[in-house]
């Protein structure tokens, strides 16, 4: 087997098939770009969910100890035990004031307006509660004896009579809604991507077929002199792979450009909102390449069937 033979044949095929190959590359580019975009949107929304709720359905904010210190150990232990014994609760974790502040800094990294003006003292310690099922917030409310109370500024706040508890917050509805939006958006983009991937398969298969048709005389001679079917097919398979991979490469590049121009521009304007980073684009890229290899293999299998009957 000689590699240079295959690459020479592939290059000839691509050159002769120029415009058709260009069509295949652009379709695979669009398909893979949308596919990557769907993955990025999914990541973005997960990022938002995590930042807003930390994937925790209920937060029980604790009253500070004396002089803005962490709440006393025995209060934490007592409340943790009490919450953990509820059937609605799956798990409880404690987040100290320091940990909460660390997270706050992380969340608003690069936004000095927040990090410089909020001191660790202002952020409360909390118990983060996972529920066994959403909508069980009322059980927590009852257990900690919390009631809505009108605030002087007109809003309402849950005030709890349970000692050591300041207030509680329910993220379960929000979490559910966000998860649904995530699912819907990424499903939408993903289904467009799948349709596009399908057309990429068809177009690349067609390109290969046209290439084989254009070279059927040559293929006939190859068969005459004893070339095996694979010897004839492989240059076409490489051709499809090249077209698909070039499309994928361009798509990754375009996602980076999109991220740098649009997202980075937005994150300059919208201050306290998490955005995908370059590393997210990098994390998505292998999946796009994988999808393009899949496209090439399916297209190759369909495209090269004909013209090879002995």
């Amino acid at each position, binding site marked *: *087997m*000689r590699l240079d*033979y295959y690459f020479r044949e592939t290059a000839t095929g691509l050159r002769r098939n120029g415009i058709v190959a260009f069509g295949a590359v652009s379709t695979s580019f669009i398909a893979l770009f949308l596919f990557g975009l769907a993955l990025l949107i999914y990541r973005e929304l997960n990022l938002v969910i995590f930042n807003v709720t930390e994937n925790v359905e209920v937060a029980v904010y604790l009253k500070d100890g004396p002089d803005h210190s962490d709440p006393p150990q025995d209060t934490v232990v007592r409340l943790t035990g009490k919450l953990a014994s509820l059937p609605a609760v799956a798990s409880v974790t404690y987040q100290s004031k320091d940990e909460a502040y660390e997270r706050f800094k992380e969340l608003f990294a690069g936004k000095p307006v927040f990090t410089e003006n909020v001191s660790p003292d202002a952020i409360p310690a909390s118990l983060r509660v996972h529920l066994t099922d959403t909508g069980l917030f009322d059980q927590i409310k009852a257990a900690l004896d919390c009631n809505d109370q009108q605030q002087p500024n007109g809003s309402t706040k849950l005030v709890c009579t349970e000692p050591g508890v300041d207030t509680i917050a329910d993220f379960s509805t929000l979490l559910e809604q966000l998860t649904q939006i995530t699912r819907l958006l990424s499903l939408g983009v993903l289904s467009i991507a799948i349709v596009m991937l399908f057309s990429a398969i068809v177009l690349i298969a067609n390109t290969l077929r046209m290439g084989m048709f254009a070279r059927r*005389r*040559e293929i*006939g*001679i*190859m*068969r*005459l*002199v*004893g*070339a*095996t*079917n694979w*010897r*004839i097919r492989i240059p076409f398979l490489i051709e499809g792979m090249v077209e698909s991979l070039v499309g994928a490469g361009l798509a990754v590049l375009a996602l980076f450009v999109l991220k740098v121009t649009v997202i980075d521009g937005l994150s300059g304007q919208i201050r306290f909102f998490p955005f995908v980073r370059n590393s997210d684009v990098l994390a998505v890229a292998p999946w796009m390449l994988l999808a393009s290899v899949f496209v090439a293999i399916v297209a190759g299998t369909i495209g090269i069937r004909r013209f090879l009957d*002995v």
Partner: protein
Amino acid sequence: MISLQHVTKVYRNGVTALTDVSVEIEKGEFVFVVGPSGSGKSTLIRLLLKEEEPSKGDVFIAGKHLNKYSTWKVPHLRRNIGTVFQDYKLLTDKTVFENVAFALEVIGKQKIVIDQRVPEVLDYVGLGEKLNSYPDELSGGEQQRVSIARACVNRPLVLLADEPTGNLDPSTSVDIMRLLDKVNRIGTTVVMATHDQAIVDAMRKRVVELEKGQVVRDQARGVYS
């Protein structure tokens, strides 16, 4: 070397090309298959290349029983059989050297082997000076020489020629026949389908005559009719 035993070929459209044909060809023989158009000459050649399957009967070539030869191995069979056609079947965008080298490339021969054998065989067919010409720049006779060089470069046991002189004038045809005779003299079995009467009469080789798909004559040192 070649054996057809009671071979009948009926094409899918109902046309009967060969009826109960039996021919034995020994190693190193030179055989003309003659007959008018539609007598089954080309079908016989196609059966030997396993381009077609016989409807009845058995086909053996180079020790292989083609009826039982699996399809995926056919390329390997063809490496032992050289083929020459009326229309040369050369690649017009490749030079003479590349056309002949192509036959070695597609069966995975090393470059070093190709660089040695191709000039050798082109020299042998008398085209040693035309390595870098393109087929369009050659005469019909020269193009047929290239195609013979390509058929022989892999040192096949059998050379099948289907009307190799069909497009050539009489004197060029004689040159091509001299070349095929030369190939035959080094031990290659040559089977040539033709209706070129002058050539058959001049060569005085074994003649198998087909008519309407049947062998009507099989004569050593024969003439056309």
